[in-house]
C-alpha cells in the first residue's frame, strides 16, 4: 500500500481521480477521495503532484529531489 490520504484536507475536487491513469481513485459519498483499487497503483505520482490540497501522498521516497 503506497497511497496515503489525509481526508481532513481533501475537498473532493476530483483532480486526482481525473489524472490517475489506472483508475485507482474515486470520490466518496461525502465528497472525499477514496481508494477503489489500491493494487493497481503504479506510484506515478500524478495524484500527488497535482493535488491542490496536500491530501494525497505516495509513501515512497521521491527518486531524485
Amino acid at each position, binding site marked *: 500500500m503506497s497511497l*496515503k490520504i489525509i481526508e*481532513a*484536507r481533501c*475537498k*473532493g*475536487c*476530483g*483532480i486526482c*481521480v*481525473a*489524472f490517475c491513469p489506472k483508475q485507482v481513485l474515486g470520490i466518496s459519498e461525502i465528497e472525499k477521495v477514496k481508494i477503489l483499487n489500491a493494487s493497481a497503483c503504479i506510484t506515478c*505520482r500524478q495524484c*500527488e*503532484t*497535482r*493535488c*491542490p*490540497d*496536500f*491530501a494525497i*501522498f*505516495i*509513501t*515512497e*521516497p*521521491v527518486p531524485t*529531489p
Partner: protein
Amino acid sequence: MFMEQLIEKYFRPGRLPHIWCPGCANGIITGALVKAIYRTGLDKDNIAVVSGIGCSSRASGYLDFNTVHSAHGRALPFATGIKLAAPQMTVIVITGDGDAAAIGGNHFIHAARRNIDLTVLLYNNNTYGMTGGQYSPLTPTNSKASTAPYGTVDRPFDLAALARGAGATFAARGSAFHAPMLVDLILSGIRHKGFSLVEAVASCPISYGRQNKLGDAPAMLKWQRDHAVPAAAYEKLNDEQKADKFPIGVLHQADAPEYTEEYAKIIARARKEGGH
C-alpha cells in the same frame, strides 16, 4: 525525502487545510514552490516570503519562513525593503494577476527596472477570485466576469514581455498542470541573480471557470495541458496557430548588475568619500 515530509517541513504545523476553493490550482503552485525551495537547500531562517492581497497571497501564512502578508499590491516594496536591509536573505514574492499587474503594477515595473534580486511567483488565475470573479489585467478579452456580464473589452498584459521591457533579467511562464516543470522554473528563478518573474498559469474553477463555462477543475487543468507549448516550439508557430496557445518555459534571461550589489558599492564609495 518523502513528499509528505517535504510538505510538512515547509508548511507551518496545523495550518492546513488551506482556504482555497475545491479545485483551485493555488495549492499545486504553492507545492511547486516548496519543492523548488527544498532543491535550493537554503535554510528556512534565511528565506522571506512576501505576498500582497488576494487568493494567492494567502499562501504566505501557510509557509514556515519569515513571511509577510502585506497590503494589496504592495508586496514588492516590502520585499525590496527586506532585500536591501538584509541582502543575505533569499526573498520570494507571492502575488496574483490583480495584485501585481493592476494595483501593484507600478511597483512591478520598477522592481524589474532595478533588477533587484527578488523572485516573483505570480499565480495567474485570470481573475479577482477572492472578491468573486471580477476581470483583472490578465483576463482574456471577451471573457465573462462579474463586472463584465457582457464580456470584457480590455486587452490583457503579456506579463513576461512587460517584465522584460521593464528591465527584468529573468522571465518564465509555467502552469499548474505542468507542475514538475514549474518546480524547475521557480528553482531557476531563485538561483538567478536579479529580478525574476515566474508566471504560473493557475485555474479558478469557481469564480472564473463557472462564468466562462470552462468546466470543472480537471477540465481546466486539461486546458492548460492542451494549450501550453514549450517556448522554442511556440516561436515556430504562425500567428493563427499561436492564437489559442501560450508559451511555457524560460522566456527571457539576461545578465545585468543587481541592485543590492550595486548599492553595496555606493556604501563603500560613501564611506571613502563621504566627509560628514
